[in-house]
């Protein structure tokens, strides 16, 4: 068993809108949590190659590898080829419409793998080694004969069915099989919390499920009305977001993994399997921008439901049902990704204070209701509470968008988002969509926030907007002053701010550090900031440079267009939890800006 695992970018994601699995380009499922994103892992080799557990299917000996998602789907196909033959390994979690699910029994969760030899012959090795509860439990696998292999843990039942004979090997199961051209073999691994468990059929049923699944994803992808630059990458980003969505509630988790390091061998390892309010405005903007109205509405519904208990105070992070994530714990027995310890589960960011959240939530609702709809009484009440809270608290220090744990500061971005909250609320009031707010107070506080940003967040000596009031530290989030409409991207101040960010935070084209502290800590470049830069350039009318930055950033996506949270500026390797929703949101929003700005430029040319 190897101790050096695949690089982060060598993984791809599959899922079913409730859970997800990461599969390496060597055909190994190294991460799977059931029944929810934030449940304990069943396969966790990505965070401990030795004890985490995996399910690998790979050819014997050296082979050439290539992989792709079937067009506009989340069905992954990995092709192994060598002189003697070629095989395709197809991995997916079956999905279909709710109507079609009524016609036959579906397991609560299922992961299907199908191997097909397309040329010559090839010998394959199957290694099925589940380890439950983050590698802590080596489960007893019972042979249930024709019903497959079963793992019973409490009320949970896991069933593995295979079309080839598996034998016990160590604590797991294994097989060695040679496939000839035209032959195919299917596997199904399923989970049930309710008895009797559904035993999924194999044979042609696997192909039927594959077709249903591919059809569902293609249908969903086809609902996007995006026609513009980088369409393939935008579609893939939308499909990633969909994989990060928890359909029963509408929540969208930041990433499906925990503790993939921001610095290899370091301790910046966090659990991202929760939903961050920070992403709310970007999420709604992206989903509406692409035409996924139902998904955007489901997300806003979750947002309103999740924030119900604590209003007017908002938490930084929620679990998929709007609860506080479990408290942060360190799993010291795990080796971590490439020795990056500790592995953490739960998230302490839920204890932090972030004033930017009010702007995120209000802006999300603003996008959601549009210009004509009137929010219902509950939403109006929430907006009034947000307005009052922001008016009372915007001057306080907080942990900021990057959740700095050292000290609270008067962050520019937090001020900006407080301004956004009051600005959108006043606009909704002016349109007659919102009643009962104290207009005079909101207007005067909005004005005071603007004055503070323009005077205290602007550093006249360095001639740039800085990370915080009175600071001399550059922060890429200052680019969002233009994105949120606080200041024109083409203004002299914003152009100078961008120039300073370029000078201080861009190690090479397409990469941007989030701020000077992270650069000094030798963290990777923050991938979403590259798309903010492209977005900013598009908004300032510099379309060719925007496209250059966008394309340079895209070069750091992996072979199936997935992006991580961060990029190592030296090696170009992905860092941090993977794939990262925030980065893909940045990609979509930058592409939308590019498309809109290009369109406007063409219209102006025609006139």
């Amino acid at each position, binding site marked *: 068993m190897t101790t050096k695992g695949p690089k982060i970018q060598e993984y791809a994601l599959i899922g079913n*809108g409730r859970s997800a699995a990461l599969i390496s380009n060597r055909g190994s499922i190294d991460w799977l949590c059931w029944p929810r994103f934030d449940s304990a892992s069943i396969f966790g080799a990505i965070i401990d190659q030795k004890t985490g557990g995996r399910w690998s299917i790979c050819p014997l000996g050296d082979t050439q590898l290539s992989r792709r998602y079937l067009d506009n789907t989340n069905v992954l196909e990995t092709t192994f080829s060598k002189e003697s033959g070629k095989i395709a390994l197809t991995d997916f979690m079956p999905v279909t419409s709710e109507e079609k699910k009524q016609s036959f029994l579906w397991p609560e969760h299922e992961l299907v793998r199908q191997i097909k030899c397309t040329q010559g012959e090839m010998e394959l090795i199957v290694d099925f080694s589940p380890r439950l509860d983050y590698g802590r439990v080596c489960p007893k696998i019972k042979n249930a004969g024709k019903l497959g292999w079963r793992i019973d843990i409490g009320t949970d039942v896991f069933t593995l069915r295979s079309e080839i004979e598996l034998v016990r090997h160590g604590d797991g199961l294994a097989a060695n099989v040679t496939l000839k051209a035209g032959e195919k073999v299917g596997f199904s691994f399923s989970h049930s919390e309710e008895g009797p468990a559904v035993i999924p059929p194999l044979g042609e049923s696997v192909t039927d499920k594959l077709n249903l699944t591919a059809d569902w994803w293609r249908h969903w992808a086809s609902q996007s009305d995006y026609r513009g630059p980088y369409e393939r990458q935008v579609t893939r980003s939308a499909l990633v977001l969909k994989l990060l969505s928890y359909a*029963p509630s509408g929540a969208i988790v930041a990433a499906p993994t925990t503790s993939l390091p921001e610095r290899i061998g370091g301790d910046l390892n966090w659990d991202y399997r929760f939903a961050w309010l920070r992403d709310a405005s970007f999420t709604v903007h992206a989903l509406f921008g692409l035409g996924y109205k139902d998904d955007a509405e489901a997300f806003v519904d979750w947002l309103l439901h999740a924030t119900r208990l604590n209003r007017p105070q908002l938490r930084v992070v929620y679990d998929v049902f709007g609860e506080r994530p479990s408290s942060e714990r360190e799993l010291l027995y795990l080796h971590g990704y490439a020795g990056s310890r500790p592995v953490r589960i739960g998230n302490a960011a839920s204890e932090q204070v972030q004033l930017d959240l009010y702007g995120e939530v209000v802006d999300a609702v603003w996008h959601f209701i549009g210009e004509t709809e009137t929010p219902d009484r509950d939403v109006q009440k929430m907006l009034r509470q947000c307005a009052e809270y922001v008016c009372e608290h915007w001057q306080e220090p907080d942990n900021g968008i990057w959740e700095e744990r050292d000290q609270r500061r008067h962050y520019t971005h937090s001020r900006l988002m407080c301004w956004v909250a009051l600005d959108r609320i006043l606009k909704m009031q002016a349109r007659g969509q919102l009643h009962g707010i104290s207009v005079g107070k909101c207007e005067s506080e909005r004005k005071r926030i603007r004055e503070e940003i323009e005077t205290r967040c602007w550093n006249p000596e360095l001639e740039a907007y800085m990370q915080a009031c009175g600071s001399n530290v550059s922060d890429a989030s200052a680019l969002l002053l233009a994105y949120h409409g606080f200041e024109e991207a083409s203004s002299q101040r914003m152009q100078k701010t961008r120039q300073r960010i370029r000078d201080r935070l861009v190690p090479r084209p397409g990469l941007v550090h989030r701020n000077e502290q992270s650069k000094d800590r030798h963290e990777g470049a923050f991938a979403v900031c590259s798309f903010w830069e492209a977005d900013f350039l598009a908004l300032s009318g510099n379309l060719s440079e925007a496209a250059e930055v966008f394309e340079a950033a895209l070069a750091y996506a992996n072979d199936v267009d997935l992006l991580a949270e961060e990029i190592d500026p030296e090696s170009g390797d992905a860092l941090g939890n993977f794939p990262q929703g925030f980065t893909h949101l940045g990609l979509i929003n930058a592409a939308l800006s590019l498309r809109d700005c290009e369109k406007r430029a063409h219209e102006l040319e025609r006139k």
Partner: protein
Amino acid sequence: MNWTSWLLWGFVSTVVLTSILAGSQGIGMTRMNIPYLLGTIFTPSRDKAKFIGFFLHFANGWIFSLIYVATFQVLQKSTWWLGAEIGLVHATFVLTVALPVLPALHPRMANEQYGPTVVRQLEPPGFLGLHYGIRTPISVLIAHAIFGGILGAFYTLK
């Protein structure tokens, strides 16, 4: 059966039950809003749903109080603690059976096997209603115990 006493105290106990559940939502104990939950069976409009659901919940409370008073009549005993005990059994049934099966009956509620298709749906309550806040079971148990306690204390046997 003392119909007048049932009508009066069934009404009063339902008022108190509804107030406790609404109050526990107001103070942030739970996100569960029973009138909204019931009303959305008939309409997706949040405001209309709460209005319809309020009357439905009231009717439910009255109907359920019949079971309580029937029990008092059969046992020929009506005390606050007997009523509270029946209330606790009632609440346990609601939390462990009624709420978890609600997604199967409610046309606008997702279940936990739902997806990835998304439509604007209500979240499923989950076991003990925990998806609506971890203190949901406490508010339901207290509200039903008080509901039963009032009926038991004030219902006059015939």
